[in-house]
């Protein structure tokens, strides 16, 4: 096959030499034949005549030899391509419209596919990733929650469905001893972690089982990016030590470039080191930031594993009711974890962009059909002088391929340019690594789309022309014939399809628009404007107890408040929209004790005085904290409105008391008095309802990590750097991380919905324009075709209204057919959007009605111009026209 192609190609490129060779060869034959005849006694004259007779036309032989060498087909192709380029160049208007349409569609498709590939299809860098399962605990009221370390140990010991199980605990470190101290995140893992997921360090050693136990020597593996940015990719880093939270850790390995884990991390450390620092982890009731990962044993399905793990969890809930009552287990494929909640948005967008491609193809097919109609004479002529049907189809396909090819190249360019925009819009979760780029798979997709579109929009016109060519149309006036009618029907159908597809896209965009506008209108319970958040985590070795930590927080707050231009500043934990949370069971004084797993379980905030004012959270009753609520003062708290409704319905909660935890677990109950009620906040995102919350004064419960909240009209970058300077003046080793404006966090919370809206909006606008052009094309072409008819009608006394009605009706028929089909299809399809919608029904009547109206308007507008042209028809010229 390949050698055959090579032979043909050589034949083409060396055609001259080969032809010359053939001449020599034939001449040789001729001379030998001549000699032979002369030897048999013929006269030279007679011999020469016989030879000529034997030989036939030398040209014909040459021609047939060329054929045999297989040049002809390729030569014809070259001819077709050259001809295609020439005609396309001549019809620049047509070519431009077709090219722009295709480039936009192919570009959009390629860009979106690059996201689809990056997020959904790209192979995970693990050995046999499909059998890797992430395990978490679940609780009916809380949802998915971290795994208790003792529970993990029991899971691992008791199950028969996983060939191995490892634990991963999230850690954060202050990396000091460098120019600007910073906070990095990492995971503490059991020594079997890397071998379980099938990853080998790039170089260096793996963790040792001895490092799983408390007391292990601090050691650390660097991820590739950290190694590059902070250690200049030097191979001799192994054995060096870095200061993590002020403590020396030895670098033992560097991870491969494509390494990813379930979170964005910079380092890995042995679990033993984590256990040393988190001595509380051995308590079964402690659920920190830990998850388990397991590899399914051969032949075990996820369902089977889930069943067994649920049995184990149920048994543990019975054995340890205080810690495990109502706790279950959740299993999830690693792949699904990586894709996360972005999957529905990506799939919807991919479907939408494919629809746009279909519309674009329909439009270009229409253009080609229109052009083919004008070329029936040319094709008939070609058939008449001996072109075969296949030959004509080949030539027309060559034209569409050239258009598609150029469109594809332009589209790829557009995709490349748009990739950055798409990338910034769709943040394929940081954990999927580099995420989105132009790679082989994406290029292949673009090629496939291009080829497919060439066939889609090229074949129909080709077949059409062929059929037209079959009847000899040379002598016919090409203006009116049944073929013309059939062709118009084809094109009308295409436009109806375009309209229907646009309806679907527009309905989706409309529903998203409504969702997002409703989402943005949600009151988050606090003021998001001009509010900056900075995260500060103290190094435990430097601030070993509550007194030192509290002293730092107080000094920090005083220094920041002294900065000019601030409205207010405060410290708090688990601020809204940051996905950070800490919860605690509470017992209200005098309440009936529920089962261990059913205690009220509010989010627990530690805040400085002025926190509510800084965030703009309304105080509904009682008072806010003051400096008087110190470490020595009586224990006090604020609760939110929802907690009030739940626990004190119809009563004033101010003055009531509660304690943390459950009475049977507390050695001596420490009662906390409620001094005020704060309004609810949308802590977990605008789309999620508020939860139970309590606030406690910073002085009475001092955390080592806090968010500094600053309300100011100063530009956030300038503000950040002056705050950095303040922090550095207090402690030069103290980093600041996660600086965001609250407005940015709100935007993130709108997240994939916002992205879906923007892209879906752009796609449906494109679809709308294309559909408009489509209907315009069909109507105006038919007006041009019917000039004579209109002229006759006018000459016979038809008025302006009659002409307008006639043309408008034609447009209205197309538009309404498309609308009806599209509406029905959209009604069936919008439920796939349901996951992305927010307080809007997929069958929202207003949206459907608006879409119908918009498309009807577009249809009308597209018909209007041809109508005007029809009105200008002068009967005399029209009749003379033929």
């Amino acid at each position, binding site marked *: 096959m390949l*050698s*055959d192609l090579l*032979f*043909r190609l050589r*034949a083409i490129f060396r055609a001259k030499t080969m032809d010359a*060779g*053939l001449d*020599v*060869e*034939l001449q*040789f*034959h001729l*001379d*030998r*034949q001549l000699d*032979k005849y002369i030897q048999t006694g013929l006269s030279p004259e007679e011999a020469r005549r*016989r030879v000529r*007779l*034997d*030989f*036939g036309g030398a040209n*014909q*032989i040459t021609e*047939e*030899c060329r*054929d*045999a*060498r*297989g040049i002809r087909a390729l030569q014809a192709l070259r001819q077709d391509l050259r001809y295609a380029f020439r005609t396309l160049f001549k019809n620049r208007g047509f070519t431009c419209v077709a090219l722009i349409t295709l480039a936009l569609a192919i570009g959009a498709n390629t860009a979106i596919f690059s996201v689809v590939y990056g997020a959904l299809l790209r192979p995970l860098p693990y050995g046999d990733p499909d059998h890797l399962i992430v395990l978490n605990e679940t609780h009916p009221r809380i949802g998915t929650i971290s795994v208790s370390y003792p529970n993990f140990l029991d899971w691992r010991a008791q199950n028969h469905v996983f060939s191995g199980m490892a634990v991963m605990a999230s850690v954060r470190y202050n990396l000091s001893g460098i120019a600007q101290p910073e906070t990095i995140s990492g995971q503490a893992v059991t020594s079997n972690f890397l071998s379980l997921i099938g990853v080998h360090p790039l170089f260096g050693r793996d963790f040792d089982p001895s490092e799983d136990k408390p007391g292990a020597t601090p050691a650390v593996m660097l991820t590739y990016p950290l190694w590059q940015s902070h250690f200049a990719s030097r191979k001799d880093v192994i054995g060096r030590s870095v200061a993590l939270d002020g403590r020396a850790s030895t670098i033992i390995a560097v991870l491969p470039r494509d390494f990813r884990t379930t979170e964005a991390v910079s380092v890995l450390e042995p679990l033993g080191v984590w256990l040393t620092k988190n001595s509380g982890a051995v308590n079964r009731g402690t659920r920190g930031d830990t998850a388990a990962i397991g590899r399914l044993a051969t032949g075990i399905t996820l369902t089977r594993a889930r069943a067994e793990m649920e049995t184990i969890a149920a048994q543990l809930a019975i054995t340890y009711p205080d810690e495990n009552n109502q706790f279950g287990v959740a299993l999830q494929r690693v792949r699904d974890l990586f894709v996360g909640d972005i999957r529905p948005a990506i799939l919807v967008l991919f479907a939408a962009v494919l629809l746009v491609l279909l519309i674009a193809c329909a439009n270009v097919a229409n253009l080609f059909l229109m052009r083919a109609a004008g070329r029936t004479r040319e094709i008939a002529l070609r058939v008449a002088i001996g072109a075969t049907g296949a030959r004509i189809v080949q030539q027309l396909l060559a034209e569409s391929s050239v258009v598609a090819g150029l469109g594809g190249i332009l589209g790829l360019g557009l995709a490349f340019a748009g990739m950055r925009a798409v990338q910034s819009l769709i943040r394929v979760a940081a954990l999927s690594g580099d995420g989105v780029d132009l790679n082989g798979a994406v290029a292949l997709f673009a090629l496939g789309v291009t080829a497919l579109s060439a066939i889609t929009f090229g074949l129909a016109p080709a077949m059409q022309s062929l059929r037209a060519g079959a009847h000899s149309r040379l002598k016919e006036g090409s203006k009116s014939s049944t073929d013309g009618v059939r062709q118009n029907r084809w094109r009308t159908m295409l436009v109806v399809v375009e309209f229907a597809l646009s309806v679907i896209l527009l309905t989706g965009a409309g529903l998203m628009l409504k969702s997002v506008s409703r989402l943005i209108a949600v009151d988050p319970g606090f003021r998001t404007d001009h509010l900056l958040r900075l995260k500060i985590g103290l190094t435990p070795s430097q601030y070993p107890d509550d007194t030192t930590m509290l002293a730092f927080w107080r000094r920090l707050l005083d220094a920041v408040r002294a900065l000019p231009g601030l409205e207010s500043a405060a410290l708090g934990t688990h601020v809204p929209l940051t996905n950070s949370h800490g919860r605690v069971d509470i017992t209200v004084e005098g309440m009936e004790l529920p089962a261990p797993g059913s205690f009220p379980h509010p989010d627990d905030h530690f805040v400085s005085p002025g926190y509510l004012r800084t965030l703009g959270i309304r105080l509904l009753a009682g008072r806010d904290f003051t400096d008087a609520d110190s470490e020595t003062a009586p224990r006090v708290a604020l609760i939110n409105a929802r907690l009030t409704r739940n626990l004190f319905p119809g009563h004033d909660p101010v003055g009531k008391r509660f304690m943390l935890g459950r009475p049977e677990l507390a050695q001596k109950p420490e009662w906390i008095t409620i001094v005020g009620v704060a309004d609810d906040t949308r802590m977990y995102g605008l789309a999620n309802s508020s939860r139970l919350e309590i606030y406690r004064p910073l002085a009475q419960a001092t955390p080592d990590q806090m968010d500094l909240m600053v309300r100011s009209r100063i530009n956030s970058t300038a503000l950040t750097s002056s705050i950095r300077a303040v922090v550095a003046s207090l402690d030069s080793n103290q980093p600041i991380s996660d600086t965001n404006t609250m407005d940015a966090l709100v935007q993130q919370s709108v997240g994939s919905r916002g992205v879906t809206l923007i892209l879906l909006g752009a796609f449906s606008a494109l679809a709308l324009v294309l559909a408009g052009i489509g209907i315009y094309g069909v109507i105006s072409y038919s007006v041009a075709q019917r000039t004579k008819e209109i002229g006759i009608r006018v000459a016979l006394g038809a008025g302006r209204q009659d002409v307008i009605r006639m043309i408008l009706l034609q447009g209205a028929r197309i538009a309404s057919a498309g609308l009806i089909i599209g509406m029905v299809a959209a009604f069936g399809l919008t439920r796939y959007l349901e996951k992305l919608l927010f307080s809007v029904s997929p069958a929202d009547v207003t949206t459907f009605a608006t879409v119908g109206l918009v498309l009807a308007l577009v249809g009308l507008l597209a018909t209007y111009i041809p109508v005007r042209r029809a009105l200008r028809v002068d009967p005399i010229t029209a009749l003379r026209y033929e």
Partner: protein
Amino acid sequence: MLPIEANRETMSLIDLPQGTLDLLILRTLSLEPQHGWGISERVQQMSSEVLCIQQGSLYPALHRLERRGLIRARWGTSENNRRARYYELTRAGRKQLETETSLWKQLTVAVNQVLGEA
């Protein structure tokens, strides 16, 4: 147009069935490399002057066989010291010849059987 010659030619010219020409060329070349004229001469000789290959079909066939990789061509010098294009069998060509020959034998035996019974 030329009744005498035409008569003479119908005597020696049997229309070759499709594919037979290729078989004959391959067979001829299996003896030794040969140029185009040599091939047609050899076929005529070996068939006792019954089969005569038309030049018009010989050369296209040679080029086709070359494209299919069954024969290979190179320039050489003929018996009378002239530049000529010599063709020889490739390994694939030799294999093809074997299969085609056995197919042909089966065919002729079968056809003979049918004709004999008829």
